[in-house]
């Protein structure tokens, strides 16, 4: 019978002898786990820090109350494939500056396009119909005033940009990115 040189801890657990193969195995496992964590945590961290955004519209727009059902409509209106809200109001999309977090999130989550695809879309529309991209507004404060001023207006803001929405505006739907 082999001698068991592991000493018993008071709690009943065994302690591995230092330098033995069974000692090295947990070290390798730990290294692998650490590597996995390095790979995994940035992804998990990214999703943990997802920011919240809101598509807002004029409060007088009856379609603004329809929530997520308007997601596809908002996409068509922003891309100028559709000109009127389902209720008949002429749409007035307002963009955010190219490369801004709100614009990037809106393009990815609502339009389903990256910057390159969006550029190509506007180039095509400019050349074939003379259409231009929606006007970009940098200041969230001015954006809220514009959305509140025009009945068919809508745009996107991050939750961080706005403490309280003015009564003339309304959240159509929220999304994270």
């Amino acid at each position, binding site marked *: 019978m082999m001698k068991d040189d592991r000493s018993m801890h008071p709690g009943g657990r065994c302690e591995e002898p230092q330098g033995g193969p069974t000692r090295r195995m947990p070290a390798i496992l730990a290294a692998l786990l650490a590597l996995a964590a390095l790979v995994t945590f940035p992804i998990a961290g990214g999703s943990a820090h997802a920011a919240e955004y809101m598509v807002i519209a004029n409060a007088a727009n009856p379609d603004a109350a329809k929530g997520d059902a308007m997601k*596809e409509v908002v996409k068509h209106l922003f891309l100028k494939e559709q000109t009127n809200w389902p209720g008949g109001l002429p749409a007035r999309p307002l963009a955010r500056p190219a490369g801004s977090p709100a614009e990037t999130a809106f393009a990815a989550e609502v339009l389903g396009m990256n910057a*390159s695809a969006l550029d*190509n879309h506007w180039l095509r529309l400019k050349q074939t119909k003379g259409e231009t991209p929606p006007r970009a507004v940098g200041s969230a404060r001015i954006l809220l005033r514009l959305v509140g001023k025009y009945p068919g207006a809508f745009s996107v803001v991050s939750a961080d940009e706005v403490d309280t929405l003015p009564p003339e505006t309304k959240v159509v739907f929220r999304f994270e990115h």
Partner: protein
Amino acid sequence: MSKNHSKRFLKQRSGICALVSMLALTIALDGSSAMAAGSPQDSGTDAGKSSESDRIATLEKRLSEVLGVVDALRQEVARLKAQKGAGAGAPAGTDLARRIDALSEQVASTDARLDEIEDIAIETDEKVGSRALARVFNADSLDIGGFLHTAATLVDGKQNTEASFNRLTFELLARAKLSQNWSVFVAQAFIRESGINYTDPAARLDPNFNVVSKTPLVIATANYHHSDLLNLEIGRFITPHGIINIEHFPAILLDPEQPQFLRPFGGQTIFANFMNGLKLSGQTFAGFGGKGTLGYAAYAASFVGNSDHFNYGGRLFYRFGDTGFTLGANVGGGKRAGTGTQYWLAGGDLLYDKGPVLWKTELFATDEDAGGNRLAFYTQPAFRLDDQWTAFYRFDFLDDGSGRGDRTEHAVGITFKPDPDIHLRLIARRDHFQAALGLPKANAENYQFSATFSF
């Protein structure tokens, strides 16, 4: 809170007064009894001295006690005064702090708003400065843009090899919005092409690129937008058939030399690239959870080479939601330029545009009253290597019904967009012409570098 504090203070002050009064009375009584007890009454000198010193000791003791009480009272009064001061002062201090905080917030908010307005003013000033603003005579808005397109081509033909910077096109695009429903869209081209010095009377070994200088009015339409389902265009428009003819402009094409059936530019090989007349178009969203698109375009117009006759036709298309597929069906008819004979047109187009793949295919066939029927087909798969680089190949077949032999073209190219508005391309093409009556078969290769700059 303050009232209760005052009441309590008054009550404590009354108690202290009563205590002081009682002490005074006690001292007075003790003093009088001591005086009475200490009265000489002639009872003897020693006894009197002893009694006096006792009384003094007693009085000193009492005085000491009273002084202790007075000290205690003084401390109590000081404490109460401090309490009163704190009780009266706290609300005033809190209110002031609150007002200062509110004011600070207001100033910070005003500063932020002022910063934003100054930023906007600076941006506007950078754009406008001291220059005069262009104004439109009568329009709600006016958008102007355009592009510059240039190309250098080397043709390696059967008989000789020639090269030239053969393309130089500057095109202005303008759209004026007249009202909510009415607008005008114009594309004016200024074309200066240095033709490749290539002798080919039968136009068989020449890639058939246009070699002229001209300033054509490419598009000029007045548009009435009734709804998304009904748009009316009057004027000169791009014939709404297929995929590439509708896209038309070099800035958005992988190969700016359009497929053979659309050459020569401005001709009517299968159908005319442009028409003068009336066009209706519209689209709606149906199917695939509202992501499917059903659209149409229909026209009745004349081709400039045959302006005394009308051509007619249209296209119906459906985009299958997010699948990337768009399928189009085309029909048309009219009169051929020159002969004035009837033709009928049918065709289909299929587009796949999803992720890195962009694949366009078109097929058109005609039934001609005079000459041979015509057939055109191309397929052009492209792969987006990244946001800037795209590689493509195109197989292109044309039987133009002229009896000069079918022609096929293979084009392979790579395009690079260093900026969304700059499109650079390097393309190699190989054309093969079948033998025909009196004409031998022939091949021609050409290599082209082209660049399109949009604004």
